[in-house]
C-alpha cells in the first residue's frame, strides 16, 4: 500500500515539477528583462566608468562618514516606522479580521486610500495640521523625524491591516476558544496560539513596510527638513542632479545588498513559521462584539484610526471645495471642462480614464505573473524558493531613478527600444505590484494541508485539477485582496510614471504634480479636487476588485 502510494506520488511529482518550472519561468523572465537587466546596466556603467570594474564606490558607503550616516538614518527610521505602523494598525487589523460589524468591507477598502495619495499632497496636508497654529501645532512637529514617522505610518497602515487582517480572518477561532477554555488568559491565548499562526503574514507585511520606508523619498524630502536624506534621496541626487553615476551605483548596490540580507532572513522566518492549518471562511471567524465593553473597544479602534487616517484627507477635501474661504464647486467644474490646458495637454478627465486603464492592465499582469510565482514558491519551500521570493521583492527596495535610468540605457535599440512606448507604464506599475500579490498569496497557499492535495491525486486528479479544486478556492480571496493592492499601487504610482508618462498618457498623480508646479489658487484648488477624485476612484476600484469573486470562494 505504502509502496503503491509512493510510486503514484513519484509520477505526479515529476509532472508537478514541470508545472512548477513553468510557473517560475514567467515571473523570472518578466523581471529579468524589465528589472534586473536595466538595473545591472546602469550599475555596471557606474562602476565601469574608469574603464574597468571598480567596486570602490560600494566601499565608500562604509568609508565616507556622510554616506555612512545616511545609511544609518535610512535603516533606523525604517525600523522605527515599521514598528510604529504595526502599533497603530493593530487595533484596526483585529477589528477587520475578527469583528462582525457593519461596513467591514468598506473599512478595508477605505483604509487603502492614504496608501495611494501623492506624497507632496499628503505633505501639504500634514504641514497644515502641524504648523504652529494648526490643530496639532502644540506638538511642535513641523519638520524633522516625528512628521516623517507620522507620514510613514499614515501611508502604510493599509499594508498591515490588509495583509495580516486577511490572513487572520481565516484562522479558526476555535483554537483560541480551546485555549481560553483550558484557562489561558486573553493575552496568553493570543500570544501562544494566534500570534505564532499569524507570524508568516506579519513577516510579509513587515518586510513590505520596511522596504517602503527604507526607500522613502518624497516624505523624507518634504517633511524631514532639507538636511535629512535616505539612501534613496541620495541616489536620486547623485543620478538626476549631479550625474555622478559612480557614487550612485555604489549606493544602489549597498542598498540592494542590505535588502537582500533582510529579505532572505524574513523569507526564512516566514517559511519556518508557516504551519498548515484548517482555514475557515471569512464569515466563520468573525463574531459580533458582545456587551458594551467590547463595542466600545471596537468603536474606539475604528474611530482612533479613522481620525488619524482621515484628518489629513479631510484637509484636502475641504480645500478642494473652497476658494477665498467660501464654498465652491469651481475647481471641479474647471477639471470637468474640456477647455484648452497647455500644461496638461489633455483635459483632466482623460487622466482619470488613463489611470483606470493602466490600473486594470497592471493588475492583470501582476496577478498573472505574481500568481504563478506564488504558486511556485509555496509549492516547495527551500533555498531556490527563497531566492526567487527575494528577487521578486527586490524592485520594492530599488530606487525608481535607478530602474528608470537603467531602462534608458539598457533597452535602447531594436525591438527592445521601449523607452517611449506606452506599454511601459503598466509594466512599471506591475513590477511594483507583483510583490504584493506574492506576499498575499504565499502564506495562504502554504497553510493548505498537503494531505488534501495528496488525497485528490490518489483519487486520480491531474495537477491542474488539484490546483483548481483545492488551492484555487482557498486562494481566490487572497487574490482579490492582492488585486486590490495592485490596482492601488498603480493608481498612486508616481516615481516611475513621471519618467515614462507622455502627455497623452497622463495619470492622476502626475497631473496633480503638474498643477501644483504652477502658482495661483485655481491651480492649487484643481490639484486638491483631483486628489479628492483620486481618493474616491481608489476606494471604488478596490471595493470592486474585492467584491468581484465567485461565490465558491466562500465555500471552503
Amino acid at each position, binding site marked *: 500500500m505504502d509502496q503503491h502510494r509512493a510510486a503514484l506520488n513519484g509520477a505526479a511529482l515529476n509532472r508537478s515539477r514541470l508545472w512548477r*518550472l513553468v510557473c517560475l*519561468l*514567467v515571473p523570472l*523572465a*518578466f523581471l529579468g*528583462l524589465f528589472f534586473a537587466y536595466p538595473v545591472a546596466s546602469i550599475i555596471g556603467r557606474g562602476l565601469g566608468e574608469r574603464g574597468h570594474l571598480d567596486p570602490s564606490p560600494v566601499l565608500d558607503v562604509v568609508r565616507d562618514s556622510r554616506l555612512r550616516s545616511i545609511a544609518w538614518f535610512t535603516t533606523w527610521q525604517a525600523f522605527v516606522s515599521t514598528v510604529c505602523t504595526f502599533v497603530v494598525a493593530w487595533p484596526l487589523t483585529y477589528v477587520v479580521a475578527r469583528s462582525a460589524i457593519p461596513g467591514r468591507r468598506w473599512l478595508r477598502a477605505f483604509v487603502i486610500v492614504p496608501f495611494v495619495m501623492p506624497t*507632496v499632497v499628503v*505633505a*501639504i496636508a500634514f*504641514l*497644515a495640521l502641524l*504648523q*504652529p497654529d494648526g490643530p496639532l501645532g502644540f506638538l511642535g512637529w513641523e519638520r524633522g523625524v516625528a512628521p516623517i514617522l507620522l507620514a510613514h505610518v499614515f501611508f502604510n497602515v493599509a499594508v498591515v491591516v490588509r495583509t495580516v487582517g486577511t490572513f487572520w480572518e481565516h484562522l479558526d477561532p476555535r483554537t483560541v476558544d480551546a485555549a481560553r477554555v483550558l484557562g489561558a488568559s486573553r493575552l496568553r491565548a493570543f500570544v501562544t496560539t494566534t500570534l505564532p499562526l499569524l507570524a508568516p503574514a506579519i513577516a510579509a507585511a513587515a518586510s513590505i513596510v520596511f522596504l517602503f520606508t527604507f526607500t522613502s523619498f518624497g516624505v523624507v*524630502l*518634504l517633511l524631514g527638513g*532639507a*538636511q535629512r536624506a535616505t539612501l534613496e534621496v541620495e541616489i536620486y*541626487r547623485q*543620478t*538626476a*542632479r*549631479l*550625474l555622478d553615476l559612480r557614487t550612485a551605483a555604489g549606493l544602489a548596490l549597498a542598498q540592494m545588498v542590505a535588502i537582500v540580507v533582510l529579505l532572505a532572513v524574513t523569507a526564512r522566518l516566514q517559511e519556518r513559521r508557516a504551519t498548515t492549518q484548517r482555514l475557515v471562511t471569512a464569515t466563520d471567524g468573525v463574531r459580533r462584539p458582545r456587551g458594551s465593553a467590547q463595542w466600545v473597544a471596537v468603536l474606539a479602534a475604528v474611530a482612533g484610526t479613522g481620525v488619524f487616517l482621515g484628518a489629513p484627507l479631510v484637509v484636502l477635501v475641504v480645500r478642494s471645495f473652497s476658494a477665498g474661504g*467660501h464654498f*465652491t464647486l*469651481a475647481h471641479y467644474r474647471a477639471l470637468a471642462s474640456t477647455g*484648452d490646458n*497647455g*500644461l496638461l*495637454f489633455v483635459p483632466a478627465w482623460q487622466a482619470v480614464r488613463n489611470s483606470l486603464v493602466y490600473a486594470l492592465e497592471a493588475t492583470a499582469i501582476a496577478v498573472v505573473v505574481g500568481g504563478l510565482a506564488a504558486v511556485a514558491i509555496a509549492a516547495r519551500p527551500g533555498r531556490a524558493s527563497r531566492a526567487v521570493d527575494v528577487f521578486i521583492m527586490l524592485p520594492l527596495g530599488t530606487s525608481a*531613478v535607478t530602474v528608470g535610468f537603467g531602462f*534608458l*540605457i539598457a533597452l*535602447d535599440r*531594436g*525591438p*527592445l*527600444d*521601449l*523607452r*517611449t*512606448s506606452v*506599454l511601459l507604464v503598466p509594466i512599471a506599475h506591475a513590477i511594483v505590484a507583483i510583490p504584493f500579490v506574492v506576499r498575499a498569496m504565499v502564506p495562504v497557499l502554504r497553510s493548505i494541508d498537503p494531505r488534501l492535495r495528496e488525497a485528490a491525486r490518489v483519487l486520480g486528479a491531474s495537477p491542474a485539477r488539484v490546483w483548481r479544486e483545492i488551492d484555487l478556492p482557498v486562494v481566490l480571496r487572497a487574490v482579490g485582496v492582492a488585486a486590490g493592492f495592485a490596482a492601488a499601487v498603480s493608481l498612486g504610482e508616481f516615481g516611475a510614471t*513621471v*519618467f515614462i*508618462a*507622455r*502627455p497623452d498618457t497622463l495619470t492622476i498623480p502626475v497631473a496633480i*504634480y*503638474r498643477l*501644483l*508646479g*504652477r*502658482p*495661483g*489658487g*485655481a*491651480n492649487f*484648488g484643481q*490639484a486638491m479636487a483631483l486628489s479628492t477624485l483620486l481618493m474616491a476612484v481608489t476606494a471604488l476600484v478596490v471595493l470592486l476588485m474585492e467584491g468581484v469573486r465567485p461565490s465558491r470562494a466562500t465555500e471552503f
Partner: protein
Amino acid sequence: MKRITVLAIAMAVVVAACGSSHTSSTSKASKDTTVVLMTHDSFAVSKPVLAAFERASGIKVKVLKAGDAGAELNQAILTKDHPLADVMFGVDNTFLGRALDNNIFEPYRAGGIDRVSRAFVLDSQHRVTPVDYGDICLNYDKTWFGHDGRPPAPTSAGDLVNPAYKGLTVVENPASSSPGLGFLLATIATYGDGGWQTYWANLRKNGVLVDDGWDQAYDGDFTVSGGKRPIVVSYASSPPADVVFSSPHRGVPRVGVVYTSCFRQVEFVGVLRGAKHPNAAQRLVDFMISEPFQRDVPLEMYVYPVRRDTPLPPVFTKFGALAPHPAVIAPSEIGKHRDEWIKTWTNTVLH
C-alpha cells in the same frame, strides 16, 4: 536554461510586437514626419498654436516630458548614443555648461535668431537657441506686512537677516530646485565670495525655512497659499499668475516682488545630435522663436519671450515687471563652481 532563453526571446518579441503596433498605428494615422520634443515638466503650449504649426509644416510634434530640468538633461546625456528625441527644450543657463561639455547638441543657426536680443544668445556656435527668460526673485505677501506691529514689506535680500524679519522666509534647496539655485546665485553675485556665506549664515540664524522644492514652499508654506511664511523665493511673474489663476477672481495680485537680488534664468532649445529627423527638428526650433509661439509663452509658462517686439498680454504689462539689474554669472562660471557652491551652502545652512 535553454527554456529561459527561449521564453525570454518569445516575451521580448511579443512585447516588441505590441510596442511597434502602437507606434505604427500612430504613424499610420498621419503620413507626416513625427518629431519628438523632449522637455521638462513645466513646458506648456496652447493647443491652437501647436496645431497651426503642425498643419502648416506637415510635422507632427510628440512631446516627451522627462522630469525636472536636471533629470531631463541627465537623461539626454545618458542616451546621447541613441537619443530619445529630436529636439530638447529646457536647458537653462545654470545647466548650459554641462549640456555643452557633453556635446549633446548639433549646431543650428535658427531662422529668426536675429530678432532675438543678443544678450540671450549665450552660445556663439548656436548649439542652443534661447526661447524664454524670467527672473527668480523674492516674493512677499502684500496683505501681510505693515500693520499690527509687523515690519514693512522687504525691499532687498539684506532685509531678510534683520531681526524684524525673523522666521518669515522660506527658500528652496538649491541642490534640488532651480529657483533655489537661482536665488543662491543672486546672493553670490550680490555679496561676492566670502560675503554670501556670511549672508546665509545670518539668514539661518534668522530662522530661514528650507523646503525641498518650489511647490512645497509656494503652495504649502507661503501665506498667500495658507502657510505661515510671508516671504518666499519664486519668480517675478508670480503676480500675473496670481491674478490669472486667482480663485475667486481678483483684479490685483496679492503677491509682491522684491526687484533687487534677482537672478535671470534663460531657457534654451537645441537639436539633439543623432536626431532621427534633423530637418524637421530645425523647423521646430524655428517655430519656437517665431512670433506665434513667442506670444504664447507668457500665459502658458509664465516666462518672457526672447523675441524682440513680441507683444505682452495686459496682465504682464500691468503686473509683470522685470528686475532692472538682475544678477549675471556666465554659464561657464556656474558650470565650474555649481557643485562646490551648493556644497558650501549645504554646510552653511543645513549642517
